[in-house]
């Protein structure tokens, strides 16, 4: 009896592994195919072999170093936009979360609901007035135009508020009694206490911003100002689709995120789980 249960249990587990392996292969195969394609030249790219028959780094040389390639510029643009918005989000979202959880003032609940309700407004509706705005303010084709909608994130406010509410009030009061200014308290006492949440927010905001497409597509009409996703989308054009370059471009576009992912895996997975459980 015990042996039958043992066998059944193990068969079950073996079956689970098998199915999970199949899904894992489905998940990862496209990336492998993309990576392998990036080492194939214009003729090898059309051959249906996984591995390149004579791998070449020429595609990378073209994408990263050739004069006509704007990839490095696009990379830089994405980096600048994502970094600036992340810094802004970290500061303002935590400030908002702190204010909304640790202060008592009239209208607190209303203001919080107002901010959260902005999550319901779809970007698709806002991009048109945003476009009008950047034309009127002459911001078209500037970093600010691409960045401004992402400087404060309502979702981040929600998260930070949740976290800030766990901070014991005595710590803050003690600092107040010490005579410290409110802003100083925020920066030196409160922020360090929520650093894990800040780290998670930073990572997610950076990733989300790096990957955003619709607004950067609209805000930048000059190729020099494209972010990486927009540049990649524009790669295939009138002169046909150079798939070996497109796959190399896709690999380069993903690389920083994969690296961030591998370094911060625990944070990222925990962060995802957190949004689901607390939501």
């Amino acid at each position: 009896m015990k042996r039958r249960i043992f066998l059944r249990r193990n068969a079950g587990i073996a079956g689970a592994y098998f199915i999970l392996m199949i899904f894992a292969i489905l998940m990862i195969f496209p990336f492998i195919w993309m990576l392998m394609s990036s080492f194939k030249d214009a003729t090898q790219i059309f051959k249906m072999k996984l591995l390149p028959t004579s791998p070449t780094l020429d595609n990378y040389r073209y994408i990263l170093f050739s004069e006509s390639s704007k990839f490095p510029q696009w990379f830089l643009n994405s980096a600048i936009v994502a970094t600036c918005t992340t810094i802004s989000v970290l500061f303002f979202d935590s400030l908002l979360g702190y204010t909304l959880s640790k202060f008592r003032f009239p209208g607190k609940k209303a203001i919080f609901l107002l901010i959260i309700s902005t999550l319901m407004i779809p970007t698709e509706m806002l991009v048109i007035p945003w476009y009008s705005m950047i034309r009127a303010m002459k911001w078209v084709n500037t970093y600010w135009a691409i960045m401004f909608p992402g400087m404060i994130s309502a979702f981040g406010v929600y998260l930070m508020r949740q976290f800030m509410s766990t901070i014991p009030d005595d710590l803050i009061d003690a600092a107040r009694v010490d005579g410290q200014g409110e802003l100083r308290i925020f920066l030196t006492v409160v922020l360090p206490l929520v650093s894990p949440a800040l780290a998670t927010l930073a990572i997610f905001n950076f990733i989300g911003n790096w990957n955003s497409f619709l607004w950067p597509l609209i805000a930048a009409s000059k190729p020099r100002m494209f972010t990486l996703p927009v540049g990649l989308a524009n790669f295939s054009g009138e002169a046909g689709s150079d798939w070996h370059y497109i796959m190399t471009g896709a690999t380069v576009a993903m690389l920083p995120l994969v690296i961030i992912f591998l370094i911060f895996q625990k944070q990222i997975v925990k962060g995802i789980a957190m949004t689901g459980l607390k939501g």
Partner: protein
Amino acid sequence: MKRIRSVILLIALLSVVAIAGAQTVTITYWQYFYESKVQLVDELIKNFEKANPGIKVEQVTFPYESFNQKVAASIPAGEGPDVITLFYGWLPMYVKAGYLQELPKSDFNKAYFDKTYYPFVAESVDFGGKYYSAPTAVRTLALIWNKKLFREAGLDPNVPPKTLDELAAYAKKLSKYDSQGNLIQAGLAMQPTGQGHSWIREVLFRQFGNVPYSADYRKVTYADAKGAAALKWYTDLITKDKVGYPNFATDDVTAFKAGKAAMNIDGSFRIATLNAVKDLEWGVAELPSYNGIKSNYASYWTHGIVDGVKGKQLDASIKFLKYITSPEVQELWLQKVGELPATPALSEKYKNDPVILPFLKGLASAKASLFIDEAGQRNVMVDAVDEVILKKVDPLQALKNAAAKEQKLIDDFWK
């Protein structure tokens, strides 16, 4: 005494410099980004500035896809350029929106255009007797073929098909399939989203005896039995003969470059791209005729002066416009960009060049469709083909649907 003289000299010198500086006019020139064109214009600007001290020209470029967006955002706000190069198909839109000003009648009148340019150019820049732009170079369609694939199929690599029937026969011989019957080498690339829609619109319809539009392009007339026969001939190549289909190998240019399509109908602007591909042996021939009828589709980019430019800026802009449409620039354009001179006399000089000749011959029978919404009208034809091949709609019905859609676009524009 000496001192006073040197001071007077200095003042005189400074005032000359000041006057010269005060008289430097800077004009801005916009065109879309296409590497060879941008580089050539940079050179032309240097020549022009040398010949016209006191005028400076600044070139700014934007990608094709967002060009009109940029124009729509800037010109009404007074932030546009002085001189602009636009695709001729956008002329109705630009003229209607008031982006361009009429060119000086003394130089740019009907006599001038009729004498200087091909008929299809003179027709399509004429807006009720008013002229808003002038071109440098034109392009037409031709048949390009892959000589190596011809050899492999047992065909003489130097003898391309001359009629539509030969084209279909060759295409069938040149197509290859895998064990399941899937196409792996297209005898003829069939890509309406590329030049296919223009081939159908201005060439096939006419060759089958139909007149696709009224002379002013305000009425759509391709939805009749002859038009349907033309469309059916095209779609039969896809569904019955299976020599190619839309988006095979991504698109026609990718397919031809990769040697997966043996023939394609493409424009002269493709020459530079194809020359850059290693190991590609290709030839150019005139578009096949049918029933003894030849036709072609020609297009061109044309230069205009923006509305609101006046005074010294206007004078400088007119000078620049005259320069870039001059015979010497037309020939330079051919050398560096590959587009044919818009002046017949100049183009004819190159009839001994084997690559240029087929394109040149096409000019004689070319028509330039007057688009009011190039993307929209292109999509109407793309959808018509898709309806026939994907939804098995009868070709005449598909053309009727397309004509209705296109007529609505045209009517909405002109009302």
